[in-house]
């Protein structure tokens, strides 16, 4: 029943149309509430209801009781974790908007839908948050929420948010906030997950091309993009992947247009982790219009930290793990727009935690 070209596309839609879809049902959505016309509509409307209408309790309706939520900063296991996290964030940022910019999705044979939701938020920090005391400043932030949806419920989620860019707009230093966050110890399951993921990614042979997890030209393109640039660091090949005026948004305010600037972003970022290896963990491909296609990639990167700032020198060579997601808009076999998101604050906080743990262990050994 999937009729992809008539699936909801929010790019030109006002909120009033998002909330009142007029099209007929586009996907079977077995087990989902009848009101939803397609998976994009489901994601956009439940996000609005939970976050913007502040119906946090609707998580009970739209999340499974057991719903692992993976972020670089924390791991949640069940519905109560989701509700508590949502409430805390809304209290610290009470006017947070969640503007659904795009939903790229895939559908598997057993009625599971996988959505990758690109969200922009504008939010004022009027309450104390995980970053520290209220700053009373407003910022905008980009999030990518990857969800597995089954019978009207989200059953698994990977959440990446560009907290680095947000923190800078709040007038705070990423390093100071990371140090502050590192004072809160990680839960055991989170540490376990980080360690397992680090080991998994480090074990790959990054010099050989990865096996595409989907068929088709664009899936091969996405794998090739990541293999060539992230794993093999062949930055001279950027012109094979990007159009001459492609735009690129990377975390913490790294913005680029065109091949030279994009090259600069890659080289400066990978200098932080020169031995980085990367795995493609999920891929979804959705048409955007007649001539362009959107690709969502969730990926994991692991290596060792090579700090570019003196303030971080004590963290040198510590295991460096990133949970990231990228949305690519592709035209004529070239990326014309890229949004890549990961949480650089959580990344540094994890490094500070690991350093503190190592120091403590050393002290104990010496004692």
């Amino acid at each position: 029943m999937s009729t992809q070209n008539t699936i909801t596309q929010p790019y030109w839609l006002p909120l009033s149309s998002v909330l009142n879809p007029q099209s007929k049902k586009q996907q079977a959505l077995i087990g989902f509430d009848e009101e939803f016309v397609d998976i994009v509509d489901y994601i956009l409307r439940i996000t609005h209801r939970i976050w913007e209408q502040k119906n946090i309790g609707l998580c009970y309706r739209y999340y499974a009781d057991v719903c692992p939520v993976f972020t670089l900063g924390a791991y949640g296991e069940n519905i109560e974790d989701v509700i508590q996290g949502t409430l805390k964030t809304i209290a610290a940022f009470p006017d947070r908007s969640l503007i659904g910019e795009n939903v790229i999705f895939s559908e598997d044979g057993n009625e599971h839908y996988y959505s990758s939701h690109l969200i922009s938020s504008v939010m004022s920090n009027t309450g104390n948050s995980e970053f520290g005391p209220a700053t009373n400043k407003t910022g905008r932030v980009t999030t990518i929420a990857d969800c597995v949806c089954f019978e009207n419920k989200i059953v698994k989620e990977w959440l990446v948010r560009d907290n680095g860019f947000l923190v800078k707009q709040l007038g705070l230093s990423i390093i100071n906030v990371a140090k502050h966050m590192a004072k809160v110890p990680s839960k055991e399951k989170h540490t376990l997950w980080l360690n397992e993921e680090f080991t998994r990614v480090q074990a790959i042979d990054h010099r050989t091309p990865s096996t595409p997890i989907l068929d088709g030209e664009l899936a091969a393109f996405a794998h090739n993009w990541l293999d060539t640039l992230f794993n093999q660091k062949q930055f001279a090949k950027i012109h094979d992947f990007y159009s001459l005026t492609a735009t690129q948004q990377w975390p913490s305010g790294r913005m680029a247009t065109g091949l030279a600037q994009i090259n600069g972003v890659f080289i400066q970022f990978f200098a932080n982790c020169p031995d980085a290896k990367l795995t493609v963990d999920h891929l979804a491909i959705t048409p955007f219009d007649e001539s362009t296609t959107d690709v969502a990639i969730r990926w994991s990167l692991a290596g060792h930290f090579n700090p570019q700032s003196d303030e971080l020198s004590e963290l040198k060579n510590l295991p460096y793990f990133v949970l990231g997601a990228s949305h690519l808009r592709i035209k004529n076999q070239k990326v014309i727009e890229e949004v890549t998101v990961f949480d650089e604050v959580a990344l540094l906080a994890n490094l500070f935690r690991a350093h503190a743990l190592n120091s403590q262990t050393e002290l104990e050994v010496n004692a």
Partner: protein
Amino acid sequence: MINAIIDLYTKADIKTISGKLLRSSRWQQHHFTAMGSLQAQPLWLDFLAQYGVSELISKTHSKGSELETLQLVLQPKKLLKPVRLSFVIKYNSTFIKSVKCVVDTLLLANNEFTGEASNNTLVIPKLPKSDPIMVSDLDNQLHPTTFHATPSDICELPTQIAETLNNWWQIWQLNNLANFESVYIKSADVILAGSNETQSKDALLNCHLAFSQSLSRRYAQLETVQFDSASNQVTICWTLDGTFNAKNVRVRQQILTVITFTNTLISSEVMQFDTLALNQQFAL
């Protein structure tokens, strides 16, 4: 859409322009990106509050295949001299998706209020906090094996105009300053940020040389090029990256150039950028 923008400044009509913006629309002004009318309204209100409702002195409008350009010269009630605002707009029949608005803040700072004198120190504190972007250092050399956009690469142009425009771009990308003599007609009019007076092309040469003195390891990058065949006009959005020598910090200036051709040569050029926003963004 164009009228909604004009009415914003001349009638303080915030409602109409707000209704044209989606929540996901971007309004870029003073190197700050506002999302939707919620964040854009403070920008508009600040302008109205500081300078008053304006009288429209002149407007020019051109249409490219994807973007439209609007240039306004406004006489705000509280200022003695006119100011210039330029817009590059992406919209469909109902909504605006993005606006890049360049306010000539030097012109504002050099202006005079009807009651008191204006200057940089009065203008900068009123600017929104610019986006905290990171300008990654890069290899600014144009190696033979690397690829760098030229106007004709990214916009369909008539052959002769393409040639002139590519040569114009070489002035900024390759420092081919001799091209000033070949791409302009002798009496070409130039309007440059900081002044509303028409100048000769020498003003552009001086501007180029000023950039070269303050910024080292420069790199010019095209963002968009739009051609309006009816008016023989090209709008170019581009950026200039460089290391600001006085502070050894990488910066990125956003620049908007509108070029009008007579036959195949440039007869007029408007070059706009927001100097004070750049100063604020990178603490220069």
